[in-house]
């Protein structure tokens, strides 16, 4: 069955004064309807660029973005408009993504009227009211005439989600959507996104640097771990967090401080060979993690680029060593 939305071997490069940077390197990710996937990685790993590629905001340098089986960048007219409505992005910073000179009502009514979902002011107000109540801002009349600066961070993020919902999207890409709100209310925002998936079958892609958030959010979905522009591991969330296959994922999980003093102070550390993240301008040959990897094998890891390979448990990993151990097969040898 073809996927609802799919990145097929997508690469995106950016030109900088210092040379060309490959922010996303041959990433393939497909999503079914109502699926949840969390893209996890540190800054510079390409997770935000991947999100923007998925939302069709930037054009792939190579590879294809497909929605319902056809290339998005070849779509025109009504077909393109359908895609634009179907995929919505919720940004990290609700202080920056809402127009400060527009009231909540104006913010929500603009897309409704633009996409002709409603006609006339009264119908638009009614629709905006319904949207606000759907995202937990009730009673809506307390919020409709407010400006963003009169709302808390959590409320603003709910308005952003309501705006995304106004066009009944099939896919929501949430880029660090909860990292700027207080810990006490993060979970309720995540639950709100999950309820949209449950009730309306929306596919949700959550981009985050926080693996604990990904584990909670993606309980019955998948996690993709990115490093320097590549997906290095992909699999069901719980398995990936409990038993990471890629040495980078393993190192990340071992390094995370946890809200439990006994656990966090006795966690086994993984010592990397180097603390320096290579520059995207000069990526190491072979596996880009090899200069830091504790399981590095000379002649293999620094020569052959590992591709994502299936391992038992419906998982994929891009690591020669992990693949060899988990499938018992001989990994590709250096030529």
């Amino acid at each position: 069955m073809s996927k609802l939305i799919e990145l097929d071997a997508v690469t995106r490069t950016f030109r900088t004064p210092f040379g060309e940077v490959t922010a996303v390197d041959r990433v393939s990710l497909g999503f079914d309807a109502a699926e949840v996937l969390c893209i996890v990685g540190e800054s510079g790993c390409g997770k935000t660029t991947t999100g923007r590629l998925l939302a069709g905001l930037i054009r792939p340098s190579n590879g294809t973005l497909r929605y319902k089986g056809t290339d998005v960048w070849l779509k025109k007219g009504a077909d393109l408009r359908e895609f634009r409505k179907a995929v919505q992005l919720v940004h990290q910073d609700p202080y920056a993504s809402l127009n400060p000179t527009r009231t909540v009502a104006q913010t929500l009514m603009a897309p409704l009227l633009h996409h002709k979902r409603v006609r006339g002011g009264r119908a638009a107000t009614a629709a905006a009211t319904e949207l606000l109540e759907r995202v937990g801002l009730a009673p809506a009349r307390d919020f409709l005439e407010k400006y963003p600066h009169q709302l808390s961070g959590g409320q603003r993020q709910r308005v952003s989600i309501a705006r995304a919902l106004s066009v009944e999207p099939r896919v929501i890409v949430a880029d660090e959507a909860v990292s700027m709100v207080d810990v006490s209310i993060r979970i309720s925002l995540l639950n709100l996104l999950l309820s949209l998936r449950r009730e309306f079958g929306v596919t949700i892609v959550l981009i985050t640097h926080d693996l604990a958030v990904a584990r909670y959010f993606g309980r019955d979905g998948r996690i993709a771990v990115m490093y320097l522009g590549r997906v290095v591991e992909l699999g069901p969330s719980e398995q990936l967090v409990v038993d990471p296959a890629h040495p980078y994922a393993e190192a990340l999980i071992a390094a995370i401080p946890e809200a439990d003093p006994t656990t966090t102070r006795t966690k086994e550390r993984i010592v990397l060979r180097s603390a320096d993240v290579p520059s995207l301008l000069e990526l190491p040959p072979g596996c880009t993690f090899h200069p830091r990897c504790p399981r590095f094998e000379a002649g293999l890891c620094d020569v052959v680029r590992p591709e994502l390979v299936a391992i038992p448990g419906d998982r994929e990993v891009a690591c020669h060593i992990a693949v060899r151990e988990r499938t018992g097969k001989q990994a590709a040898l250096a030529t």
Partner: protein
Amino acid sequence: MSAVLSVRDLSIDYRTRRGPVRAVSDVSFELEKGETLAIIGESGSGKTTLAVSFIRLSPRSAVVRSGEILYTKGGLTTDIRKLDDDDLREFRWSECAMVFQAALNSFNPVISIWDQFLDTAQAHGMKDAKAVRGRADDLLELVHLDPKRVLRAYPHELSGGMRQRVLIAMSLLLDPQILILDEPTTALDILTQRAILDLLREIRQNLGFAMIFISHDLSIAAELADRMITMYAGRIVEKASVSDLFYRPRHPYSVGLLRAVPRVSGALGAIESIPGAPPDLIRLPPGCAYVPRCPFAVEACRAAVPPLVAVDTPNHDAACIRWQDVAAAVGNAERPVAVKLA
């Protein structure tokens, strides 16, 4: 008793056109020599206002309504609020240094790291550049940086983790007794954050200074703290050892915070947000400010602000008239609260 810092009944307001914002109310605590204290709470809880008041860096709109901040060294106790300008300069950095959240903003962008070290040292009376250089070399090695490379660099040439290390090294330049860190690792990547946390633990063990750090991130407190303070709406609502706070919290807000943070190891447990939002500090509700969000609240909670009282475990205070009911719900086992409540 050997408290280096003793805060008594401290209350701080911000003057605004709408009226005074009660940012900090009736805060009292002691910081013992060599101890690490974590102050946790969400934004607007007053934790940063409190911390900057210790080095008198509060913005001009801040008014200390009452209270004392007592600093003790070599048997001599002084009230920081009464220091004159010269003594205050002496106190800052040489007795009490602060590392701020945004590492890049803490540097002068147009001078090299070496000049930043030299500037700081000279402002505090260390005139001998050679001696400063020796000290800078030692400190940078302490934070696992190469002095030759780093001292020549400008702030923008360093990565976020390196800048944070340089700031920590610089804060230790004058051998302070107290180091205050405001969200020390918030903007850093996981692997860098891990390195900084391990580093802070290591240098504190070696140098023996006391540390106060302010964070909304409970996991950092779990890593480093000996004791913890939970703040809500400008007040201390709980004071406890790190293990009591994580495993035996007695204030519903601490319980709420602990349940709001998912973990990567062990069971997820009953993860839940705290409903509602923090109160408006200009119009605080009567009685306990947490009532509108609190699952334990009863009518009596609205009558008066609950005082901090000793609870069932030693050296543990909570400002909740229903702490016994919280204790009954949470229990005493050494397990995370979210797991116990699942």
